[in-house]
């Protein structure tokens, strides 16, 4: 038999053997792959008043909301996301998420119906911070310090900042509701303008260039369940790790607090 013919083409018997081998291998391979599968997630780009958002949705909820800042941001975000998840396209589901986000930003308080899936939070501590943060209601903000204290790390304001920086699901996990202890607005992953417009949509009377919370906010105390005007003299010596700021007295009442009898907000 000629050498060229032998190493060149494949013959029919070989092809039969291949089919047979493939049949045998499929089940074994499926079984082995199942054990190492990455979770699946639908991804898509969503338009909103905050600009374009890359959104990923797993079986358990929203895994990722990412502000697209232009350039090759989308490619690098996808490349990073692929490491943890198997990405699939599912336009209808992503459309629903887009509608949720848009109507939330337009002022519908109950629009965000899906849960956040914190799979992509890097550490257990950060996951805990983000869990705790979900207890801060719409229309309220807390300080980094207070959030740290609530999660059992009263000296961990910086660590809280890191956790929020790594928040994989902004908007759904409301990291825009965290500010500096002195009432300054702090920073935001998507830029301070987005933080401002989110807080505005949640009822805070903020201008486009404000750097501090307005004086109209009331201070709510988590321990006493009392809320005061920001000008009340009691606020001067209060334990700030227990304070939550509300956009107006109505929001504070809704959260189950009673007005202070001294400043009568």
């Amino acid at each position: 038999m000629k050498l060229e013919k032998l190493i060149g083409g494949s013959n029919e018997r070989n092809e039969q053997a291949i089919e047979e081998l493939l049949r045998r291998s499929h089940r074994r391979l499926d079984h082995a792959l199942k054990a190492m599968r990455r979770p699946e997630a639908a991804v898509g780009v969503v338009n909103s008043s905050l600009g374009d958002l890359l959104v990923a949705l797993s079986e358990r909820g929203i895994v990722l909301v990412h502000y697209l800042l232009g350039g090759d941001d989308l490619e690098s975000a996808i490349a990073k996301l692929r490491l943890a998840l198997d990405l699939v396209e599912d336009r209808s589901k992503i459309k629903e998420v887009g509608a949720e986000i848009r109507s939330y930003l337009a002022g519908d308080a109950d629009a965000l119906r899906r849960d956040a899936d914190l799979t992509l939070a890097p550490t257990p501590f950060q996951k805990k911070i983000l869990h705790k943060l979900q207890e801060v209601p719409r229309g309220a903000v807390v300080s980094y310090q207070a959030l740290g204290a609530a999660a059992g790390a009263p000296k961990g304001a910086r660590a809280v900042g890191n956790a929020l920086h790594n928040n994989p699901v902004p908007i759904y996990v409301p990291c825009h509701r965290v500010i500096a202890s002195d009432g300054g607005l702090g920073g935001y992953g998507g830029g301070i303008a987005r933080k401002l417009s989110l807080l505005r949509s949640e009822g805070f009377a903020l201008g486009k260039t404000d750097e501090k919370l307005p004086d109209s906010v009331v201070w709510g105390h988590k321990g006493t369940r009392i809320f005061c005007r920001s000008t009340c003299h009691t606020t001067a010596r209060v334990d700030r790790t227990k304070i939550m700021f509300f956009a107006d007295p109505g929001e504070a009442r809704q959260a189950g607090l009673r007005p202070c009898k001294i400043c009568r907000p």
Partner: protein
Amino acid sequence: MASPKLQLPLPFEQILRRYEREIMRYLLRASGDRDDAADLFQETWLRAYRAYPRLEAHREIRPWLYAIAVNLCRNRARDGARRMRVIVADNQQNSAAERARKTHPSHNENEGYAKVRLGELLSTLPEKQREALQLRYFGGLDYPEIAEIMKCSQPAARANVSQALRKLKTLW
């Protein structure tokens, strides 16, 4: 402003379906043994799945898959050689090379025997030449692909294949 166009990587299942047949064909011919081929096939795809997220978007999938398969074949051949060294006694070493040197008058007629003989001859080739030859003739890849898989230049890939072929012809 138009929203950016989302370009998702191919789903892994699609890659599997598209390339499984040719990968299996390659592995079967390169290893010459069905059980070995089945094992290598499994390992190739598991590795591919694990590494797939790290494959950059602009890279070609086919050479990347073959590179995994080739590396696995090479590892398996080395392990095999190591095991052989332990078992085979001193006076039987190099038996593959010796057998390859002997001439066999009957392989011109007998197809089954010709295959065995080809396997023997291939095992005497240097690793690079053997792999290049197998990729070219068993896998049917072109030279740019072979160069990418073997991390060498195209002329080097070409040279490896032609030298391998020449050696085989002199021994045949």
